């Protein structure tokens, strides 16, 4: 054991602080014996000063210019001794040219956050009023990185077996009805693990949890007078720090331990954790924005700039991170490796990922080095990588995202097809079938595991609202209803908004159930939006990014009020997880390679073995042969699904089962609470084995066993 080293001792002193030359790697601030190693790079700075604060103090207690002889290449590094690990806050001042046309925006009056800081202070409690005169609002801090994981390990669930639940950390438990301690925090999610298990999902995907500022662009709502905030958090202040305001212990600076504890407990419950990560832009905005970190450290490196030195805006938020610059690419890689290795994260969903495939001048690359690096990285090798395969600059890559055999995608076409089919549009049968079989038209080379299937996500209507509103109602956002998408493919079932008409309400609930049924019998990976299982409503708002209130919070009293929806959703998830034939890692082959007497998949209609593919058709059925489950490796039941989005009921002739098997009812969305679905093993046998009347706008699921 080495007990002593030369570099445990200082060589220099400034303002009473002792220090010495540091190590260039790793970047960031690292605890070393007797001190802290600071390392930061800038391609164009002419000097760099380390600024040290006692936690929460208005003024720094020391500023140490890093001696030029400590610089290695473009990296400034220094070990400082006898610092208080817990109470220290640090930042940098960088001097250099201010010449926007050449891409430089140095400003030594600003104290800059460390891009590699593992903890960022300043917004320690959600919506606690900040001191607007703070000379250094987002303060870099040190993190203890010795968490006791015991025997935890990322779960490495095969991706086709996942049922993803897209969740907002605060929104999940902030509603008073959640009945848990420390509402709105990581800790409160832990308290709700039993609910997640009962629902049956095995993966949560968290909306951004990298440190962001909920106060960014805050203002008053014109309709309610409430403060509107950056609730979703798609605006990163620091990529390595968890959001302090999401931790009950954020005010004590213990968010790292709290988040890791949550992940460890979720893993114990068999639930994976995917992070929604935002590497397309930062919180610094355009040339009018604040200088927090990157702009003042190395503007030209971190951002995509126009020839005039302004910011390209492919993200729709003011700036675009220059992620195919080799230095920035390494930062992204370092960041993801850190989250995978230190936080045991199971996967990442990349916001506006098409941007990650753009060159520094904005043009799309055919072989983007960042995406390739991520796909082949040894530490990320078992992580799920999921792209939102479009950006705000018009690049739409669903089906063509550079995947390297690794990347899955949010399948936006799945969402659009399912919505149009559900609202009875004509000519949707072929399209819907493509989506149900895993979108081979989009992912012929990649397989159904490339397709993350969803009908709703945080961005847009909630599932209930999809059937309660024809139009968006975003007045509460204070943008005159001009924000949010207009092509929602929604249908209000006959009345805009809330109604006490029982027929309309029954139809809305039926449509929610239809959507769950479609999602859970589709090949690919289903994603459910938090609260859709209990009919969560956003009152027609399809862009709730700024609403920290009941428009976004999961109202737990809905569990009882909409018990029918919850029970149906739970049973559909259970059904999917029980039947491997619904979760194939490969596409169907349309023939009987298992010699069972049935092809792996066959299509039917009102006549068995006869599907109506015509433009006017709004109904079809399909049969999955259980002997072909997982390419014939496991045995499953026969699964028959009839979907009738026509506005009248239709008799479906059932295909004949092999000798000894009988049709049993799993679900019939035309029925009311209690009769619309059955638990696995409790499916009643059908009296009529040859014909089923599928109600108007209804889905019927049968198993043959």
């Amino acid at each position, binding site marked *: 054991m080495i007990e002593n080293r030369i570099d445990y001792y200082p060589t220099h002193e400034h303002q009473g602080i002792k220090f010495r030359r540091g190590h260039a790697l790793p970047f960031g601030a690292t605890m070393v014996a007797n001190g802290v190693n600071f390392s930061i790079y800038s391609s164009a700075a002419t000097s760099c000063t380390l600024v040290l604060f006692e936690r929460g103090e208005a003024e720094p207690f020391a500023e140490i210019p890093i001696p030029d002889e400590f610089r290695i290449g473009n990296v400034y590094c220094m070990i400082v001794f006898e610092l*208080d*690990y*817990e*109470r220290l806050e640090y930042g940098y001042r960088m001097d250099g040219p201010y010449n926007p046309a050449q891409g430089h925006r140095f400003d030594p009056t600003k104290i800059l956050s460390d891009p590699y800081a593992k903890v960022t202070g300043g917004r320690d409690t959600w919506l606690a009023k900040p001191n607007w005169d703070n000379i250094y609002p987002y303060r870099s801090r040190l993190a*203890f990185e*010795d*968490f*006791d994981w015991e025997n935890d390990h990322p779960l490495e669930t095969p991706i086709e077996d996942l049922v993803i639940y897209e969740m907002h950390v605060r929104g999940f438990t902030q509603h008073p009805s959640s009945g848990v*301690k*420390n509402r709105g*925090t*990581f*800790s409160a999610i832990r308290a709700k693990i039993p609910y997640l298990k009962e629902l049956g999902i095995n993966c949560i995907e968290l909306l951004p949890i990298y440190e962001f500022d909920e106060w960014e662009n805050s203002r008053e709502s014109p309709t309610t007078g409430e403060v509107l905030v950056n609730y979703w958090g798609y605006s990163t202040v620091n990529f390595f720090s968890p959001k302090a305001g999401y*931790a*009950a*212990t954020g005010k*004590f*600076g*213990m968010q790292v*331990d*709290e988040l*890791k*504890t949550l992940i*460890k*407990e979720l893993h114990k419950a068999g639930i994976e954790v995917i992070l929604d990560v935002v590497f397309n832009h930062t919180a610094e905005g355009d040339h009018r924005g604040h200088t927090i970190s990157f702009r003042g450290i190395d503007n030209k490196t971190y951002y995509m700039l126009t020839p005039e030195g302004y910011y390209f805006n492919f993200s729709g938020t003011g700036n675009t991170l220059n992620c195919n610059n080799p230095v920035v690419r390494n930062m992204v890689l370092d960041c993801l490796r850190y989250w995978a290795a230190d936080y045991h994260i199971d996967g990442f969903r990349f916001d506006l990922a098409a941007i990650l495939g753009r060159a520094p001048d904005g043009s799309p690359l055919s072989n983007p080095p960042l995406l390739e690096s991520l796909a082949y990285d040894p530490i990320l090798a078992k992580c799920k990588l999921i792209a939102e395969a479009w950006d705000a600059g018009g690049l739409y890559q669903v089906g063509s995202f550079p995947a390297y055999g690794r990347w899955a995608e949010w399948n936006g076409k799945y969402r659009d097809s399912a919505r149009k089919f559900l609202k009875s549009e004509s000519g949707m049968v072929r399209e819907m079938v493509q989506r149900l079989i895993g979108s081979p038209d989009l992912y012929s080379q990649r397989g159904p595991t490339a397709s993350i299937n969803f009908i709703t996500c945080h961005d847009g209507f909630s599932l209930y609202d999809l059937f309660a509103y024809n139009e968006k109602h975003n007045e509460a956002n204070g943008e005159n209803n001009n924000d949010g998408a207009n092509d929602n493919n929604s249908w209000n079932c006959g009345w805009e908004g809330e109604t006490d008409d029982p027929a309309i309400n029954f139809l809305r609930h039926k449509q929610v159930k239809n959507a769950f049924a479609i999602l859970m019998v589709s090949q690919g990976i289903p994603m459910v939006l938090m609260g859709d299982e209990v009919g969560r409503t956003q009152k027609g708002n399809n862009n709730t990014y700024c609403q920290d209130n009941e428009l976004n919070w999961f109202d737990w009293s809905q569990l009882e009020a909409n018990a029918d929806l919850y029970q149906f959703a739970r049973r559909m998830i259970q059904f999917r997880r029980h039947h491997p034939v619904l979760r194939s890692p490969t596409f169907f082959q349309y023939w009987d390679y298992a010699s069972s007497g049935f092809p792996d998949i066959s299509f039917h209609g009102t006549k068995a073995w006869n599907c109506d593919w015509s433009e006017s058709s709004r109904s079809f059925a399909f049969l999955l042969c259980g002997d072909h489950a997982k390419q014939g490796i496991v045995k499953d039941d026969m699964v028959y699904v009839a979907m009738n989005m026509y506005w009248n009921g239709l008799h479906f002739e059932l295909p004949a089962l092999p000798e000894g098997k009988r049709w049993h009812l799993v679900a019939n969305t035309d029925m009311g609470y209690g009769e619309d679905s059955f638990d696995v093993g409790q499916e009643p046998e059908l009296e009529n084995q040859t014909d089923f009347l599928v109600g108007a706008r209804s889905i019927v699921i049968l198993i043959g066993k």
Partner: protein
Amino acid sequence: MNVTSSTVDTITLIEATGSIDSKTAPDFERTALTAIQGQSEVIIDLTNVDFLSSAGLRVLLMIYRQVKAKNGKVVLVGTSEEIQDIMANTGFLAFFSLAETLDEGLTILKTA
């Protein structure tokens, strides 16, 4: 912060008072780790501790790891509700048995 150690029967008792944070944790750590050398039954009395920072929690876990290596057990006595809450949120609580009083702590160890 003040820390003392003593022995009750075969049980090592460590008593702290005040705040255990990054400034005082090294003291706490030194005294505690010396006291538990070779011991497998340890009580840490936190009745008079008003705050445990991250560094303080880490010393507790270090004590636990060393005692655990000898198949031993660590009981925390008199942990305030706030400290318990912090420990629960950050996962530290799961490693320890809790007792309200010293007597209760002794009983837990003796019947273990």
